[in-house]
């Protein structure tokens, strides 16, 4: 046999640069290997707190994003009609000149006529500030159609949230329950955690109508009926209360369980906390038999009973109200079983398992700590049950209350920020809710008085006019969606098209594929983007500026396209002021640094935004002489910009010498320090500060020193939400700010201060006989959040999607594998190819999200499977509730937060006629590529140059 000579020690790369991945929202640390100046490969950074060296299927496909033939090459100006995708290439000076002219005119007259919405970007600390300086309240990122139910429910209940703001204590948990689709955020930390906890033999229970992804490795899969998780959780709570399996000591110490609630039906303060003259909440000291300051340590609070206040009125502890409600037979397992699709005995067993794990499995960590009141504890008690939830809970019109129900369960089990439970990631926990309030519109030429997004505490904080109507284009913070902490991006196009509450002039968007997979009712949205006012012949949405790195479906609907860079070509700032990448052991932030130079005439959107700001002369973006304040773009801004003295975009390596953390003067060498540290900064909390952060003196002092919170005060977890009650009181006719008549009943119902469950709105809007099935999506782990380039490797793994249904359902309807079926909702209809399966709730059909693409987009061949067979359920999802008989229908959203209710969808299915089989429907006209897009490669084999021994 001839000797096969292979070089086993060939030099892999001649340069390794660290940066932060952006193949999804997880933001792992990566090491990019370059050889002869070319990208060779990307691996995980072992030192990085997010991924600890691992990388996922998306991250390792990063090279193919860089090599995508869909990269935009130069600014584009529309020459045809909108949607025709006819453009001419223009120079940056012209592009920025046009944008400056459009935006300058708006700012000088009525700044709110700019609607600036960014997609799934991670630069909201900059973009939100830019909107504030510009003076438009019409700003948000995509959170309103993504995560706001999770964020708001968490921040109004425990001062942190699931999402990316906390994590299960994977090191110690013994029982882990995951609700719904969660393969989207914290991608690698959750995978690492699941590997760890399964390795330790901990039990993993997954509650999801579909058994894919993480559910596939769960020890128990609970195929719940969509939208009923809240009822399931409240039934678990009932069983735990009945069996006395709640952590009374934890409730008394760390939650508002003992706080007294005024019981005076009809009074303006009914249902609010009884407070002393200083405004401090009160409890009943059972040992002394008297009222006491609820914030005073060493009281002996009553958790149940009826007490007299000083004014003679009656009050009861929160826990009394909670127990009265959830002990009700309405939540008995037998009662809920037919609704949730889980047998009563399973509900009982799971309640028993939770109790067993939390209380009999109590763990004790021999770590002394000091609480907020200065009391020293010689150990930490752990309740090793933990929960995680994300999209599956979020994307329902009852998601806010369902998420609150899960937080309630956590609090009752005493498992919030204790060993084995859910852990906060700094800068969380924050005061409940965070103190920052949303700012309303500004006068011509003025900035907003505060940030456009924030947290309302009472009706007076809403952004409504004197008639109670919305002041924002998306109606966030109006009576339609009072706690809309992330805005309602999904309603911007529909509202702007309708001129409701007012017309806008320019819609500026970044990385938001709103003519495709980021909108409900896609055909209708396309019509709205292209609709003209018959009188003037102008577009109903007069101007659209769009920035994207790739030829997405949305590009075709823009008037001016500002081409962005890829994540390997620019600086980025992953700031604690934005969406942090901390872990529970300490805060972290990170940067991206350019790894390669763009080979085309594109600019980072954040640099462009700062440039536009300077051209417009926006405050904070020009110096006293009117010259650009950050001529170095984002890299300049993230080092030198300060929100208040010492507080900047990056928390690490601050101060002149780079030794300060959290607060400190700008450090001109900060970026070099980050690069030298692997492009991230992570601070390890001392061990005594790692649990009980909401009440841990050492942690609270640390959080103040770092600038996370203003005062080292305990964060009392809120079982009962007083802000919700203030809205309910307004709906009952109390206070200065009351809802218009048409909103009163809604507000009264949905602003219950304790979690409630109600059927998702589509259950009521879609006739159950006509549309008997639920239709939802799942998140493909190889593609989720990285479909923005349709990269050559990922699309070999999945390039078209099937509609999946239970084998039993298929058999009943005469549908077999590979049959083409029609799926119809009250909004529309779509054709898809079926696949039968076992692991799915029998009343539910589902598909993978965002695989379907419009023909021609992304520089894919027009006959690519993404376009011919791939489909979106979006076409079927109405953006409005049916609203029969009402002038202004409500958005298809959660009534508390405005979260888009994607997963409420109800449908029917039927087998297609034989001549309909073969392709999806509707098939949209193929999009023409913009000028300058390269030919698609017929073959990729550039790796040949790296082959050891090759020349």
């Amino acid at each position: 046999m001839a000797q096969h000579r292979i070089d086993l020690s060939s030099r892999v790369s001649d340069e390794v640069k660290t940066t932060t991945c952006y193949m999804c929202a997880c933001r792992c640390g990566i090491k990019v290997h370059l050889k002869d100046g070319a990208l060779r490969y990307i691996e995980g950074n072992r030192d990085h707190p997010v991924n600890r060296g691992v990388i996922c299927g998306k991250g390792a496909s990063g090279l193919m994003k860089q090599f995508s033939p869909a990269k935009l090459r130069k600014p584009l100006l529309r020459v045809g009609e909108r949607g025709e995708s006819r453009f001419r290439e223009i120079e940056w000076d012209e592009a920025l000149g046009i944008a400056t002219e459009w935006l300058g005119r708006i700012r000088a007259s009525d700044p709110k006529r700019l609607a600036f919405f960014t997609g799934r970007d991670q630069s909201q600390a900059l973009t939100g500030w830019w909107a504030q300086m510009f003076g438009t309240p019409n700003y948000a990122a995509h959170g309103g159609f993504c995560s706001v139910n999770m964020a708001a429910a968490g921040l109004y209940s425990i001062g942190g949230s699931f999402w990316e703001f906390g994590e299960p204590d994977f090191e110690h948990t013994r029982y882990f329950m995951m609700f719904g689709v969660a393969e989207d955020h914290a991608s690698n930390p959750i995978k690492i955690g699941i590997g760890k906890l399964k390795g330790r033999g901990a039990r993993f229970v997954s509650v999801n109508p579909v058994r894919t992804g993480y559910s596939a490795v769960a020890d128990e899969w609970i195929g719940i009926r969509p939208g009923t998780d809240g009822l399931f959780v409240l039934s678990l709570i009932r069983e735990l209360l009945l069996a006395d399996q709640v952590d009374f000591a934890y409730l008394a110490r760390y939650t508002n369980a003992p706080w007294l609630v005024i019981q005076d039906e009809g009074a303006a303060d009914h249902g609010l906390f009884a407070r002393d003259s200083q405004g401090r909440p009160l409890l009943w000291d059972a040992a002394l038999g008297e009222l006491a300051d609820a914030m005073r340590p060493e009281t002996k609070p009553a958790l149940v009973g009826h007490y007299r206040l000083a004014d003679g009125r009656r009050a009861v502890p929160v826990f009394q109200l909670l127990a009265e409600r959830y002990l009700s037979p309405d939540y008995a397992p037998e009662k809920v079983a037919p609704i949730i699709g889980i047998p009563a005995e399973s509900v009982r067993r799971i309640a028993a398992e939770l109790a067993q794990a939390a209380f009999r499995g109590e763990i004790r960590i021999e770590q002394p700590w000091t609480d907020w009141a200065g009391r020293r504890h010689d150990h930490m008690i752990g309740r090793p049950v933990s929960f995680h939830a994300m999209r599956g809970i979020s994307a329902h019109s009852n998601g806010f209350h369902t998420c609150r129900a899960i937080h309630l369960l956590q609090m009752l089990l005493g498992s919030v920020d204790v060993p084995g439970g859910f852990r906060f990631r700094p800068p969380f926990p924050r005061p409940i809710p965070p103190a920052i309030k949303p700012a309303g519109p500004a006068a011509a030429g003025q900035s907003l008085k505060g940030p456009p997004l924030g947290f309302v505490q009472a009706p007076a904080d809403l952004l409504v006019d004197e008639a109670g109507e919305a002041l924002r284009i998306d109606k966030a913070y109006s009576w339609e969606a009072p706690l809309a902490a992330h805005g309602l991006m999904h309603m911007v196009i529909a509202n702007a098209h309708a001129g409701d509450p007012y017309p806008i002039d320019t819609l500026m968007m970044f990385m938001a594929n709103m003519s495709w997979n980021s909108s409900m009712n896609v055909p209708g949205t396309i019509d709205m983007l292209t609709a003209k006012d018959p009188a003037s012949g102008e577009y109903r949405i007069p101007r659209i500026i769009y920035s994207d790195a790739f030829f997405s479906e949305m590009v075709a609907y823009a008037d001016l396209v500002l081409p962005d860079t890829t994540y390997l070509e620019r600086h980025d700032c992953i700031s604690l002021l934005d969406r942090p990448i901390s872990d529970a052991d300490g805060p972290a932030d990170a940067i991206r640094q350019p790894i390669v130079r763009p080979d085309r005439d594109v600019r980072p959107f954040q640099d462009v935004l700062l440039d536009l700001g300077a051209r417009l002369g926006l405050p904070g973006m020009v110096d006293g002489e009117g010259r650009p304040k950050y001529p170095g773009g984002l890299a300049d801004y993230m080092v030198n910009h300060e929100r208040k003295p010492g507080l900047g975009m990056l928390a690490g390596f601050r101060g002149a010498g780079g030794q300060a953390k959290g607060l400190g003067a700008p450090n001109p060498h900060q970026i070099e320090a980050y690069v030298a540290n692997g492009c991230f900064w992570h601070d390890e909390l001392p061990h005594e500060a790692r649990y009980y952060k909401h009440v841990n003196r050492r942690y609270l002092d640390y959080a103040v020193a770092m600038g996370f919170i203003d005062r080292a005060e305990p964060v009392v977890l809120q079982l009962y939400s007083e802000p919700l009650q203030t809205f309910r009181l307004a709906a009952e006719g109390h206070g200065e700010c009351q809802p218009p008549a048409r909103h009163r009943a809604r507000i009264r119902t949905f602003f219950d201060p304790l979690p409630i469950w109600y059927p998702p709105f589509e259950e009521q809007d879609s006739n159950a006989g006509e549309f008997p099935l639920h239709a939802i999506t799942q998140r493909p782990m190889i593609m989720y959040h990285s479909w923005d380039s349709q990269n050559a490797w990922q699309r070999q793994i999945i390039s078209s999607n099937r509609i999946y249904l239970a084998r039993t359902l298929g058999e009943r309807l005469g549908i077999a594998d590979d049959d083409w079926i029609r799926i119809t909702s009250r909004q529309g209809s779509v054709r898809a190819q079926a696949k039968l399966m076992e692991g799915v709730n029998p009343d539910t059909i589902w598909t993978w999200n965002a695989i379907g693409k419009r023909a021609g987009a992304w520089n894919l061949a027009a006959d690519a499977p993404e376009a011919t067979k791939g489909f979106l359920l979006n076409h079927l999802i109405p953006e409005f509730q049916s609203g029969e008989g009402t002038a202004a229908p409500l958005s298809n959203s959660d009534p508390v937060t405005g979260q888009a209710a994607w997963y409420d969808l109800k449908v029917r299915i039927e087998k297609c006629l034989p001549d309909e089989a073969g392709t999806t429907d509707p098939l949209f006209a193929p999009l023409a590529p913009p000028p300058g897009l390269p030919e698609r490669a017929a073959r990729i084999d550039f790796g040949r140059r790296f082959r050891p021994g090759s020349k």
Partner: protein
Amino acid sequence: MTSLPEQPAQRRLGLVIDLDTCVGCHACATSCKEWNMGGVAAPLTDLDPYGAKPDGVWFNRVHGFEAGEGGAGRTVHFPRSCLHCENAACVTVCPTGASYKRAEDGIVLVNEDLCIGCKLCSWACPYGAREFDEAEGVMKKCTLCVDRIYNETLAEADRKPACVMACPTGARHFGDLADEGSEVSRLVAARGGFDLMPELDYRPTNKYLPPRMNASPAAVPPAAAGEAIRPESKFLQWVDRLFSR
């Protein structure tokens, strides 16, 4: 025809793949693709990458399927790559000596200079682990990252196959399965690691670990079960309890 090494290798390097924790994220597949597209078997050609039938060379593919009926069944994610068999028929059928098994560590490789692209090896492999590069006209396959695991230019901790380095759930392990004391051998022993299709007697080096069946915690229903307790009586129980702030 090509001979296997006369003596069983002293070392049998291979993978142990844990089906209990594989969530099907494809990290192993794309990390493999990424490393090997520039490794000793480079390129791993992709044809029609943006067209109707994108098709490339992958040394590692992840399949998903269901086993069992209804809720009692399981969804399995199954990563598939060369198993580096002891009794490698892909080697013995090779007419040119291109396919061979290394005597020193048992890794099965292809010498592309000798490969005539006859595909006999892919017919002989019952695991479907061979990958023909149409553009290059030669057969390719998992090299167990032979150009990583011995690579002295890499840090010691990085001398592992790319798939193992990547795996976020820690479902992939690399080591010497001839060494009973190795971590991988101990895992196989402890977890009942098994061969794929042992009846064919190819004696694969790679092992799979079966899903663990974690018993539910001995579920003692808290107190007596449910309805025996009257909700109203709870308040009487609780009212006399003294808690501390």
